[in-house]
């Protein structure tokens, strides 16, 4: 019997059973599958149980008592996706978030996300309109495939490696060099910043935590040996969110300096938020002043320049002079 069929048969048996099904009974019902030596049969059954659990189906072992025999069963309450009991606006948020992520066409665990959105229609009493967002997302994620196959495929491979904690072999192109390096990386997590995805993990070549821009990964291969055993542990103090929410001007390039940026009013919420959660913003006549600590002045300079005449670097003086030099040079090029 094929495995997919056996797993479903087993689920159907344990789901329908009125009382726990003993191992003997299971063996009798599946003589071809769980025959042979007792030890091999039990191992195979345990693997099947693990696979069912990975599909969201928990098979439980029940100790017998006076009323019930010992055996396995699937408790319907533990099996069926429960009603999430969320108010309609929360449910809509859930649909929208999942749909927006799926519609982007590159999201880790994209297939899982699609399955989850489908299942959501069962997890609420009246999902109604929210499903529309899910359907639109499905369609949008299919549109415009040109040149987009690589990052989603990489995200999928990395998603697997992260979940299973398996090491990956990377071929990585440096940002400013055309040559590539090959390295082993313990993938700790994935984050999105500025619309691009980054892998972070322990790099065995540099012997430190490094981040990798997915668009610069030329090749990737997950260690497929012993798929059920972990290759590494993620350090307890490691946080993907901390890495991801670091602004470019917070990368450690030079000692910390105080910086000030003036924003010309009316200041949009988006421009304000673009300086991150650690910036202090003081309202001022006709605008606002952003105060922040930088360890990579060049990155702040670039951010401010990109805001055009809506923003102006006030301090440090050296960075302000550099902004002026750059703009003068660009202005001279007009001829």
């Amino acid at each position, binding site marked *: 019997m094929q495995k*997919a*069929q056996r797993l*479903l*048969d087993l689920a*159907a048996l344990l789901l*329908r059973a009125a009382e726990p099904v003993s191992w003997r009974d299971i063996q009798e*019902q599946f003589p071809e599958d769980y025959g042979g030596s007792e030890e091999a049969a039990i191992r195979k059954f345990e693997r099947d149980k693990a696979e069912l*659990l990975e*599909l*969201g*189906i928990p098979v439980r072992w029940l100790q017998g008592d006076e009323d019930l025999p010992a055996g396995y069963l699937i408790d*319907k309450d533990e099996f069926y*996706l429960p009603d*999430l009991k*969320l108010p309609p606006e929360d449910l*809509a948020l*859930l649909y*929208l*978030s*999942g749909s*927006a*992520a799926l*519609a*982007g066409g590159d999201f*880790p*665990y994209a*297939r*899982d996300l699609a*399955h*989850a*959105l489908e*299942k959501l229609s*069962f997890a609420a009493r009246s999902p109604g*309109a*929210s*499903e*529309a967002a899910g*359907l*639109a*997302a499905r369609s*949008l994620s299919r549109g*415009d495939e040109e040149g987009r196959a690589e990052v989603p495929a990489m995200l999928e491979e990395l*998603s697997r490696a*992260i979940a299973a904690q398996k090491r990956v072999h990377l071929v990585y192109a440096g940002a*400013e060099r055309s040559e590539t390096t090959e390295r082993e990386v313990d993938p*700790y997590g994935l984050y*999105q910043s500025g619309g*691009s995805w980054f892998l972070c993990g322990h790099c065995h070549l540099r012997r430190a935590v490094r981040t990798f821009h997915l*668009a*610069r990964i030329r090749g990737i291969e997950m260690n497929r040996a012993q798929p059920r055993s972990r290759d590494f542990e993620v350090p307890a103090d490691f946080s993907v*969110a901390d890495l*991801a929410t670091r602004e470019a001007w917070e990368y450690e390039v030079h000692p910390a300096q105080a910086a000030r940026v003036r924003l010309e009013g009316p200041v949009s919420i988006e421009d304000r938020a673009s300086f991150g*959660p650690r910036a202090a913003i003081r309202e001022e006549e006709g605008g606002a002043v952003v105060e922040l600590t930088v360890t990579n002045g060049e990155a702040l300079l670039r*951010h401010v320049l*990109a805001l*055009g*005449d809506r923003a102006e*670097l006030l301090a440090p003086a050296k960075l302000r002079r550099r902004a*002026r030099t750059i703009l003068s040079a660009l*202005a001279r090029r007009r001829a």
Partner: protein
Amino acid sequence: MSAEQLRKDDARERLRRVLFLVPYAVRHPGIAVRELAERCGATEAQLLEDLDFLLSVGCPPFAPDDFLDLYVERDRVYVALHQSFTRPPRFTESEAAALAAAVKALGGEGKDRVLEALRQAVPRERRKGYDELAKRIYAGSPPARGSVMDRLSRAIAGRRAVRLRHFSAARAEEKERVVHPYTLARRFGHWYLFGHDQARGRELPFRLDRIRDCAVLDETFEPPPPAALARARLFSEPHGHAIRLQLSRVAAAWALARPARLRVVEGEGGTGPVVVEVEGADAEWATRFALSFGGEAEVLSPVEARRHFQEAVERALARYQRG
């Protein structure tokens, strides 16, 4: 990926699909084959194969009534025997973790309630695994309160119409539009709203950074029929001339790693500057993009885009010449 791995994947995907399609068909008796396939993210051929496969599934002792029984009659799917597969299984840890990452990135007031509900929908034995995995993906910071994105997500969730002041790159003009917002999507580094434009009478994408203002209206709307959404696309043919930018080699390497749709037109493999072209962009975006490379990039053409860039540079320079 090896052939064996692909086969394993297919088998697993099929299992996940059928665990959804059986209860869905139970709940929607007589659903059209095409619609069920669409719901399951499968082709019609795949769905029919799945139905064939299901005919062999049942539970011991495999008497006639012990099998699953789904059948197709005049292109519609009916379930005669469901063998208790009347609801899909709980979320797997990666399903819930992917949804959780998406929810965290979009924020909203109910975020914490939603995250807790997701956790409870994972089998008890896998909740620890889910907690671990959910920490491993960070899909972005939630939009600032009151920002265009924040307002749009509320409007979509509440099915409320929005009035947008939107700059159209194709027409180079700003217009007010009333839109029924359906969903948000991020592509090539930009966020888009996808919705029904009332005046133009069709579904269209709107780039968020071109929305100058957004007001949520009291007017509510009914969800669109699935057929309208099946045609949803983010991009049509790009309008207008492609914008050309020149970048230093170092800046070009960075630029090409960004999710914008850039195409190298000059200088590839050489040692000097690189010229790239981007379709469907507007002058404002191109100016910001070029300036974000700190003097290592400039907008070359077309004339209007070049002028926009130069004027922006001069206005910014004027600020620095004062003090």
